[in-house]
């Protein structure tokens, strides 16, 4: 789980520095929160650097008619400097200018924008513009960038983006990178059951996506964790076998077991009756995950729902 978060943080750091994320691959083995703290320190450095001139640009922008400011933003300043100046211009003026900018330019600006410094602007941006920009970011597979904005957007804007996104895969890829995991329950609640079912189905396409789905589920409250766990247990045997393989190969059993534990007993029995889970490799991986005391307790709670041989092997 933390590997995904660390990789996302490295990508955000590289984006901030205008570098290739491969240059900082050595950071991926470090704690995601430490990398985020480093990124925040560097963000502060870059926002402070040249602040006097940025403030002058902001002051000049206030003197200039909105339409002309928009032309200057796109033709002269460019996305990086617009992102730096945005928080200095004042939310009202910045929102008025943003309404006259092209969605493509705004999408580029989003790559450089610090949502924490521009939350008022983001919340004041018309929903239809947010949707238009999100479509461009999705097409560019900028899920990490989209995730940075989840915290700052209004629920209405998030719902509009979800409704305008027919495929659940980009939603999953975005949600997993959201910086405030407490929002995950809210995000999941915006999706009707049919779309949650589709999301779970799409997440089984490969190990990376399933790992992302489990990372998302790990932050949910027991009700939503159980809901998604139940939808998982309703998949066919062949798909569930793939999930078992992913969890074994990627060491995901610690979360997978907690998700199973959140489901009704019938769902737990269905999962443990799978042939794929009753293999030496899967059982060994489950045993290894239970070295953690918390997971050992979960496993103990689940044993009554396991076939006798499986319970005896663990």
């Amino acid at each position, binding site marked *: 789980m933390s590997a995904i978060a660390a990789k996302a943080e490295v990508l955000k750091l590289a984006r901030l520095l205008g570098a290739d994320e491969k240059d900082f691959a050595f*950071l991926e083995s470090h704690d995601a929160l430490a*990398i985020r703290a480093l990124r925040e320190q560097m963000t502060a450095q*870059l926002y402070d650097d040249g602040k006097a001139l*940025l403030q002058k640009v902001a002051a000049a922008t206030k003197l*200039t008619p909105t339409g*002309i400011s928009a032309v200057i933003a796109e033709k*002269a300043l460019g996305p990086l*400097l617009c992102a*730096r100046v945005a928080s200095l211009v004042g939310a009202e003026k910045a929102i008025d200018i943003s309404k006259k900018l092209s969605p493509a330019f705004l999408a580029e600006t989003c790559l450089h924008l610090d949502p924490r410094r521009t939350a008022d602007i983001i919340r004041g941006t018309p929903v239809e513009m947010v949707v238009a920009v999100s479509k461009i970011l999705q097409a560019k597979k900028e899920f990490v960038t989209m995730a940075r904005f989840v915290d700052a957007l209004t629920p209405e804007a998030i719902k509009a983006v979800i409704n305008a996104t027919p495929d659940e895969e980009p939603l999953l890829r975005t949600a997993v990178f959201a910086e405030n995991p407490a929002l995950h329950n809210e995000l999941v609640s915006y999706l009707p059951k049919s779309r949650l079912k589709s999301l779970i189905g799409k997440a089984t396409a490969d190990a990376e996506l399933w790992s992302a789905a489990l990372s998302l589920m790990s932050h949910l409250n027991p009700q939503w964790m159980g809901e998604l766990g139940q939808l998982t247990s309703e998949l066919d045997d062949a798909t569930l076998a793939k999930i078992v393989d992913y969890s074994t190969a990627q060491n995901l059993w610690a979360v997978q077991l907690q998700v199973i534990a959140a489901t009704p007993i019938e769902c737990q029995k269905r999962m443990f009756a799978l042939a794929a889970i009753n293999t030496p490799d899967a059982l060994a991986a489950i045993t290894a995950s239970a070295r953690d005391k918390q997971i050992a307790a979960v496993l103990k709670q689940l044993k009554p729902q396991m076939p006798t041989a499986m319970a005896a092997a663990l």
Partner: protein
Amino acid sequence: MATAKINALSEALGAPLPTGLGSLSKPQLDQLAAALGNAKTRQRAALEQSTEAALSHIPLLLRGAVRKVLFG
């Protein structure tokens, strides 16, 4: 912010490294510090270039006032 070790990165940041990054090697810290320095240099150059370019889009009537705000 526990690591008080002096290195190129903490000097560039003007602060100790975040807790959890204490095991970074000197070349890795140097690389991160250089990347931050390069980003600052690029940002400054872009800012100077674009403020001049911005003036050409300002109507003549406003240009003097805007120039005064930007360059004193």
